């Protein structure tokens, strides 16, 4: 068997694929962050908590209402998105004129409150959530055993990411959105309801986080701190990709998943720091991020 740096190539392929799967989550989450930052200029630290709420919503639908995974995939993002809309209307809308820092403090505080409430109610050790029947089992690819569910995660995440990118960059609706962030007064003069558009955008970004949460529920433990563990990495991904760049966050999400996967093979102890090392290097060389334009 051929080897690269002492690791069999077959094992390496497996690890690359795994990296891609983790990258799917990074991409989905950082996409939502990038949309919200790009269009609202809010650094949404509540994103991790909203991801966690998505997973809990899936659990709740199954345990209390008997609605399975596919229902959760459709309903949880909407439900959590609505809570996002409420938060935007009641709180965030008051902060747009102020410094970024206020939005950051508010969303960070909210995240702590939400996590605390969930921990109080559900404890910290997590709740079980099974993989849907249709996606159980897996396929032997020769170099690794790929669970069907993980294959689904890559597929679904790619579709959602590219769909979002398409809507924002290539459609008329997206053009309005981008125009509204550049110059809200002018867009309003054309008869478009800018505040409502902003609210719905935030709701959509939050819905994306919840969607990622539903997809994560069957593979990670559904627990109150699941978002807090992930959000810092996702922020690093957004910073590396360039704040606000949609395609940048998608590509960076997948790429960093791959790099992290490789680190887990060659030097596992560093696997939770490697992303931050890359972030530091990128910030030194390109402060606006790999895909970001300086503002």
């Amino acid at each position, binding site marked *: 068997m051929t080897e690269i740096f002492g690791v069999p190539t077959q094992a390496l392929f497996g690890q690359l694929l795994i990296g891609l799967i983790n990258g799917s989550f990074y991409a989905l989450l950082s996409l939502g962050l990038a949309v919200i930052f790009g269009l609202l200029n809010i650094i949404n630290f509540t994103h991790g908590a909203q991801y966690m709420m998505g997973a809990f919503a899936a659990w709740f639908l199954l345990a209390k209402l008997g609605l399975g995974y596919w229902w959760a995939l459709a309903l949880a993002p909407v439900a959590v998105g609505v809570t996002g809309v409420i938060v935007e209307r009641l709180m965030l809308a008051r902060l747009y004129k102020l410094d970024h820092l206020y939005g950051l403090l508010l969303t960070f505080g909210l995240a702590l409150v939400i996590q605390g409430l969930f921990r109080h109610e559900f404890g910290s*050790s997590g709740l079980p959530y099974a993989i849907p029947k249709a996606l159980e089992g897996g396929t032997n690819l020769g170099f690794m055993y790929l669970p069907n569910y993980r294959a689904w995660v890559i597929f679904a995440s790619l579709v959602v990411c590219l769909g979002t990118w398409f809507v924002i960059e290539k459609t008329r609706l997206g053009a309005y959105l981008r125009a509204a962030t550049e110059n809200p007064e002018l867009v309003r003069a054309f008869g478009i309801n800018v505040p409502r558009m902003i609210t719905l955008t935030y709701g959509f970004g939050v819905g994306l986080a919840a969607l990622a949460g539903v997809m994560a529920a069957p593979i990670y433990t559904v627990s109150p701190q699941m978002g807090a563990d992930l959000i810092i990495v996702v922020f690093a991904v957004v910073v590396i990709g360039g704040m606000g760049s949609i395609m940048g966050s998608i590509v960076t999400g997948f790429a960093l998943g791959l790099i992290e996967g490789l680190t887990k*093979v060659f030097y596992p102890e560093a696997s939770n720091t490697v992303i931050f090392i890359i972030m530091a290097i990128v910030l030194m060389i390109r402060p606006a991020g790999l895909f970001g334009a300086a503002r």
Partner: protein
Amino acid sequence: MKYKRSLIAAAVAMLAGTAGAQVSDGVVKIGVMNDQSGTYADLAGPGSVVAARMAVEDFGAAKKGMKVDILVADHQNKPDVGSTIARQWFDVDKVDVIMDVPTSSVVLAVNQIAKEKNKALIVSTGATSDLTGKACTPNAIHWTYDTWSLANGTGSAVVKTGGDTWFFLTADYAFGHALERDTEAVVLKNGGKVVGKVRHPFPASDFSSFLLQAQSSKAKVIGLANAGADTTNAIKQGAEFGIVKGGQQFAGLLVFLTDVHALGLDKAQGLLLTEAFYWDLNPQTRAWSERFAKLHKGAKPTMAQAGVYSATLHYLKAVEAAKTDDGPKVIAQMKKMPSEDAAFGKGRVRQDGRHVHDMYLFEVKKPSESKGPWDYYKVRATIPAEQAFRPESEGGCPLVK
């Protein structure tokens, strides 16, 4: 730092120097330090505080005219946070004993401070066997279990049933290293072989990469030298990657009842594990656990929480007998007296600070065997107290002559 205090026996404020003649500032202060909000919060956390309060009540502190305060702090599994709390407790708040302390890295840090300040430390949830080995002090007691006893229980049972090649998935900090080291020794002693190991960051959420490495190692047994959410995530994701279907087997080296609860029997069934306590062992444990559950949202106690109860009770008895709350004097008294309570039955504390009692090898029930929530274990073997822990002579503790 968030910490709150709670008065327990406020009603007996007027004890006026009878029983408490030698008790510093008239109050016995017990500081329960653990993870109140993170990955270890359910297996110890607020439940440990409930257990400590039950011990104060069962000891009858109020009736005996002894004033006992319980303080609570969240060390967030960080040694620096734990050290800061310990110093503040000992120096400013006049805490007499620190209790529970999960997370071995924090245990070892607080152990040093307890020695330096000449106070007492009683560990229930923390696991490292070094606490009664090279790091032992006259100020500390290790109550519930340790990495050696877990390795000895689960490790040897698995090797004897044919699981003779091992791959370790190890949490990358003091606890994981100690558990891996102690288990590896047991595996080798019983004629097994270790074919590989990988150290994962603590805490981690995605184990797929490490599981893949374990899978390609072809080891018969994947030893999980981690705890809490790390263990449940690894087992959950292992099922997804077809680890068990592919003929490999997990050995959960430290699994708590709450972990099995979180996993669900479907995923956890058949798992072998070693614990010091289970609620459904005998009439006493059942009755005690029933009381505990009423005070703790219906959840049955883990061995860590039961250990806090048992240790607090014995500590208070020793304070009464020694007529002082001076750290090393109470610890010495605890070593002199045999221990007995509803949760752990009879036991004793050795010179190296190890509390010895029976340990149990459990197997997780199949969903069809379980009568409902919390009915999860069946006893596979009882490991008698004298064999359950590392012999005093082998730990390298300087207190043992």
